[in-house]
């Protein structure tokens, strides 16, 4: 599930991060794990909120759908 497909992407603590070696032109800032967790939580909450921005009910896919891998 969390396997990074792209080069230049690291997975740490279950979260995606850019490979710091690619950040040659831009300096990363001081940021705590707690602040990172907060961003992830708030993104998820925001997407949930956005989901009901227009339609009142989110329809689920037909029962005949399959997800293959």
């Amino acid at each position: 599930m969390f396997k990074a497909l792209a080069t230049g992407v690291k997975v740490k603590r279950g979260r995606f991060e850019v490979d710091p070696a690619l950040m040659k032109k831009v300096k990363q800032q001081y940021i705590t794990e707690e602040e990172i967790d907060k961003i992830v939580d708030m993104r998820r909450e925001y997407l949930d909120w956005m989901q009901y921005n227009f339609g009142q009910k989110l329809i689920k896919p037909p029962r005949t759908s399959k997800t293959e891998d």
Partner: protein
Amino acid sequence: MTEQFRIYSKDAYHIPLSKGQKPPAELALDNYLTFACRHKFCLEVCPVYQVTRNEAHTSYGFHTSLFAIWKGIGNIEELGGTFTHCLQCGACEVRCPNTLFMGDFYKVTQTTIELVRKVRSDLVRAGVGFPGLDEVKKEVEFHLQAISKRDDLMKWTEGLDVQVGGRCDLVLYVSRFTATQATETARAAAKLLKKAGLNFSVIDMPQAGIGEALDIAREDKFVELARKDVDKLREMGAEMVVVVDPHDYFFFRRIFTRIFGELPFKVVFITDVLWQMMEEGRLVAQNEIHKRVIYHDPCTLNKLTNVWESPRKILSKIPGVQFTDEHHIDQWYYCCGNGVSTFKKVNPEIAFTIGQRRIRRALDLGGKTLALGCPHCWDHLTEVKTKSKSDIELINVIEILAQSVGV
């Protein structure tokens, strides 16, 4: 001055701006990351912009102004009147996709509050200043006087039969503002913790909490007072510190940690503790409180530290309360108008209008009571309510709980 401790998340912010000189290239690059987007997610979410409709009064405006100066257009002397137009509420920081959708991935986020503090302080250092600076300096001086007056600072504990100072692993932290301006909230917190059967002590003579110092080049004073409180809590043997003022919660969780590193105690907000006590049955909301309640998310809790669940859970469990919830993401767009520091002193009219609008929203939803989580919100909205002759009730959520619990 700022090089001695990490005041800002970004190294480039520690280099002061000077008159007649270009900002450093590293700062320009940081400003560019906002300019490069310029899609203005920071506009409609900003409570100041909602009033002035001036895009200079936004994260985009602040970053781009500095970037333009780096390109030789403009100078720092004209920035003061623009950079006072920021509540430091954190709405733009969280709403910006640079934070919300890539900040964790790249470890580069929108740090508008820090930029605003930096520019205000740099303008003071450069001898330029900003409109309303004298008022802000007075506020800082007032705080420095007030934290030495035991009679005023600790009076709120009278008659509560609570331990003050000494050693205890659970400490209740009530800083100067709440202790002197919102005593009922402080007393409610203490009474509820006591009713829950918790063994706690109240910090004696708290010193910190004056965010304004960061806006007037008094970072040294901010750090000094913070260090005193952190040291005192350590000496008390605190393992958990319960905070009543969300501004203090924000300072502890996000600024003190940056300056001092990991703190030797956990910091929790009062409503999180009280909800846990309710879940464990140690606090029972038994008295019916017949109110039509809207809850206002304090910016420092909602936008800056993502605490929004426990106040709602508490309100939902109080019998008699008709609670109409406004989603906490909708409330990224709201503010009471006080600001985390400085704003109300330098832009009182805009602060008033923002407060009026917030009360209006609650009334439009049929609310008669606006439940608050922050003593600064309560203080400011009380002034707004009085001036605008509104009859809405303003009360801290923990005081409603205290009434229902019966303390």
